[in-house]
């Protein structure tokens, strides 16, 4: 499915601020994998996502998705296949445009070759309405309102819907519930689980909640210093406690997990 072969990225090379954010990282995902990622602040988790999504080109290594080489593909072309959610709920939607218009934009991905002058049809609207109703937020009755009027949680739920309106081959979730209040975060997480399971999307999710990292999905990665230091799945993971996970991290990384926002329970 996703095949990352020893990618490296150094920011500001040749300056005093040079920072090797990814160093020879390799990763293979199978179709349908739901992988959680944890790690210290600055471990390179977001950088890994940015490398996959094409925010920048990696210095070394290759990235393959379903056999297709993405390494030198520009960001906008990769985003036809890759959906993304960020921690900041404001990042994923256009505030000055209506809910309907935002969804229509997300729908572009499916209809790659279609006419640029096509307008939002009745059928599109019906589809948007149906999908919105699955969020149970009453947004289906507010389709003509600008997204800027929605709360952070509503915007993040909408972004999730937009990212999966046409099932992406890969979904990248970068602490997408971290900026929401606990109740809303819980709701968005539930939605994520439902949608990912229903559409069988291959998914990578960064979280700072250790318990969540073990409970969700089928595999957990821990990152430190621009690389993966721990990769657990299968039976081993099922029986693992948070304490064991932390101990294993220390063995792999050579230091304790330090992330001031980490949640142990």
């Amino acid at each position, binding site marked *: 499915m996703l095949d990352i072969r020893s990618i490296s990225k150094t920011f500001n090379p040749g300056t005093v601020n040079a920072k090797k954010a990814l160093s020879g990282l390799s990763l293979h995902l199978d179709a349908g994998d739901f992988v959680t990622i944890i790690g210290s602040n600055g471990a390179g988790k977001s950088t890994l996502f940015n490398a996959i999504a094409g925010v920048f080109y990696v210095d070394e290594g290759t990235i393959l998705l379903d056999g297709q080489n993405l390494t030198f593909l520009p960001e906008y072309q990769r*985003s036809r296949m890759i959906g993304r959610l960020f921690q900041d709920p404001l*990042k994923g*939607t*256009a505030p000055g445009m209506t809910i309907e218009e935002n969804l229509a934009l997300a729908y572009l991905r499916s209809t790659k070759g279609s006419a640029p002058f096509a*307008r939002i049809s009745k059928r599109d609207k019906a589809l948007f309405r149906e999908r919105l109703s699955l969020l149970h937020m009453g947004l289906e009755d507010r389709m003509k309102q600008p997204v800027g009027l929605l709360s952070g949680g509503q915007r993040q739920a909408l972004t999730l819907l937009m990212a999966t309106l046409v099932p992406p081959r890969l979904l990248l979730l970068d602490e997408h519930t971290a900026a929401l209040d606990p109740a809303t975060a819980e709701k968005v997480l539930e939605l994520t689980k439902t949608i990912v399971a229903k559409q069988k999307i291959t998914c990578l999710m960064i979280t700072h909640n250790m318990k969540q990292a073990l409970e969700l999905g089928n595999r957990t990665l821990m990152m430190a210093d621009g690389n993966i230091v721990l990769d657990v799945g299968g039976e081993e993971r099922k029986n693992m406690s948070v304490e064991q996970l932390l101990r294993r991290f220390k063995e792999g990384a050579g230091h304790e997990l330090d992330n001031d926002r980490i949640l142990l329970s």
Partner: protein
Amino acid sequence: MLYILQTALELGFLYALIPMALFLSFRILNIADMTTDGCFVLGAAVSVTMAASGHPFLAVPAAMFAGICAGFVTAFLQTRLGVPSILAGIVTNMGLYTINLMVMDWSANVSLLKDDTIFSLFRETGIGGQWYEALLAGFITVLAGVLLVLFLGTRLGLSIRATGDNIDMVRASSINPTFTITVGLCISNSLTALSGAMVGQYQNTADINGGTGIVVIGLACLIIGETVLGRRSVLKGAVAAVVGSIIYRFIYAIVLYTKIMPVQGLRLATAVIVALAIAFPTIKNWAAFQKRKMAARQKGGR
């Protein structure tokens, strides 16, 4: 008096496509496009030159095409070559000066003496009586506005709007911002050139300096229109451009007629209006902050 108002209406329609172009570039795409001045003259130059050689109708699409090219150069500079957007427009504008002279066969102005224009040909149909100029200019402008609003509701139009609204989102959602910015600037400059083309044939002349400051006047018109109508939707924005332009030309006519101030003074007044309107949010924040500081001082004793 009626004559003055009629002229104001005509000019209002003729120039309305500039605030409409700025609505697209400045409001929707968030780019202050300094190509506008030179592009307006380009439209006039192409249009008048072609009308002089007997093609008043062909002159209009030709002028628009020239505008598209100008917009493309500015877009290319900023999206592909990393030139800051304001500078990209200024650079293109500078280059256009020479291009415009070239179009006008190296003279600073060209005139239409007895040649047909779209206006003279339209008068012969007898439609609209003495209001024929306002009618034709209004028709073309409203048509362009309707097409623009319809376009902004299409997939491509939505992508252009999203580019100005949230570039982060655009990058993450399979839209190529280079492409959307390019299309947006090409369209906005074709509108500017269309305005130039109509004004040129209306006044029977094109002048190399005819576009100076037109971008600021266009912004003033847009701001006036938005003040009257609000700026919630695309449709309102397009209508605001036309309404603002007509109001501006009425104010201009009144100043001209009543002589309450020298007409040359209008430029300064326009500049002040634009600066204040754009600075308004900052001034409002500053005032709110001062008020809070005062309140805190009164409560805390010092």
